[in-house]
């Protein structure tokens, strides 16, 4: 257990430090949000209409950011090789890496998301649901994103490739979360979308590490 905790702490430290962390993802999140009113005009009514969906899209894109650093560095400097031969199963190690990634970037981003949505004109009443969606969605994004990151180990232009692999896998969580936010803003029942988002996140947490570990073993072989 202490090995697992140490690993989690290490992953979070790496995700926070070395020029990563909230400075970068938060900066990207704010910058991408800023572009929307600049591109589509500052009329408050129109912006308010698309504010939840736009925030949700930007969140999904921000989740791509740190992915290429999730495995690549450890793969290059040999740490991944050591982890594969350590006492912890590689599946568990991969899950911890994704969890650390989510704790360091996805969870803080979830707290920033309401600021962006409200700045775009969404109702402040949306904030609790948006945080909850961003937390669950962030978990789904981290664990499906990890699959893409592990698969593109050893590939040329791995970062871009990861995005190409992962974006189609983001379709269901983006739909579920977007639907929940949309329904809430319209005063309709939103639980269905939110429950489905939670289910997808749970499935990603359960199954993603299997694919990640298989991909890591393949890259290390």
């Amino acid at each position, binding site marked *: 257990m202490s090995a697992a905790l140490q690993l989690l702490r290490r992953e979070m430290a790496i995700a926070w430090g070395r020029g990563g962390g909230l400075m970068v993802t938060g900066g990207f999140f704010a910058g991408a949000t800023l572009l929307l009113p600049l591109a589509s005009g500052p009329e408050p009514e129109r912006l308010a209409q698309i504010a939840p969906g736009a925030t949700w899209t930007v969140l999904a894109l921000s989740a791509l950011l740190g992915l290429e650093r999730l495995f690549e560095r450890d793969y290059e400097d040999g740490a991944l090789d050591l982890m594969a031969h350590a006492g912890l199963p590689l599946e568990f190690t991969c899950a911890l890496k994704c969890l650390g990634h989510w704790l360091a970037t996805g969870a803080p981003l979830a707290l920033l998301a309401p600021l962006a949505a409200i700045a775009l004109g969404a109702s402040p009443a949306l904030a609790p649901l948006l945080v909850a969606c961003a937390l669950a969605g962030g978990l789904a994004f981290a664990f499906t994103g990890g*699959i893409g990151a592990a*698969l*593109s*180990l*050893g*590939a*040329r*232009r*791995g970062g871009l*490739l990861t995005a*190409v*692999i992962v*974006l*189609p*896998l983001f*379709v*269901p969580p983006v*739909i*579920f979360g*977007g*639907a929940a936010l*949309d*329904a809430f803003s319209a005063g309709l029942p939103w639980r269905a979308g939110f429950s*489905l988002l939670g289910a*997808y996140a749970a499935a990603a947490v359960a*199954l993603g590490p299997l*694919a990640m570990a*298989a*991909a890591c073993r*393949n*890259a290390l*072989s």
Partner: protein
Amino acid sequence: MTQALAFLYNPHRFMAFSAWAAPLFGALALGLAAAGLWLGFTAPEDYQQGDTVRIMFIHVPAAWLGLFVYVCLGGASFLSLVFRQALADAAARAAAPIGAVFTALALATGSLWGKPMWGAWWVWDARLTSVLVLFLFYLAYMALRAAIDDEAKGARAAAILALVGLVNVPVVHWSVEWWNTLHQGRTVFAAGGSRAATVFLVPLLLMSLSYMSAFGALWLVRIRGEVWRRRAAAAEARLAR
């Protein structure tokens, strides 16, 4: 089933089988397409869609095949990943571009059909959207395969991705359907389209079988090409020593 697959695992037997099977499937595809197109173009006009209903005979089988080829790709990837069958990997590699072309054809003809029917080249209809996502799955598979220099590693990574995709394709399909029913007001699918009459069903069936045979022929030819390419590479490696 496993017996039939075991028979095809052997590259020599596969080459002997495909040497006559591929042209046979190709001829079958041409014959079925001729019959299907003839019946399709002599069928009466649809009372609502007019002549444009004939796009269906090109479009619908392409969409079906796009999905079917992905299942074949996933099955071949499973065989190559779990049983380490080299021929199964060749089959997976060979299937991907064919499937991508079928989905691209479905998207292009769907767009051409959408213009007269919906008044727009593209509508965020559930079926169009999920076919688009399927196309992205194919692109991701081919991009991953192309980006890894080590061929054996690239093959296994791509096989893992194909299996992840295979698990996700039903989820994506269903989630897109669900998403679309939430926004039903925006779709304008012509009412009564599903009550297809026999005059339309027969050519549709013939065209589907034709597409299926065409896929069989193309797939076999491409696997043969892949086997030849590997043999050439192996011979080259031997000579270099």
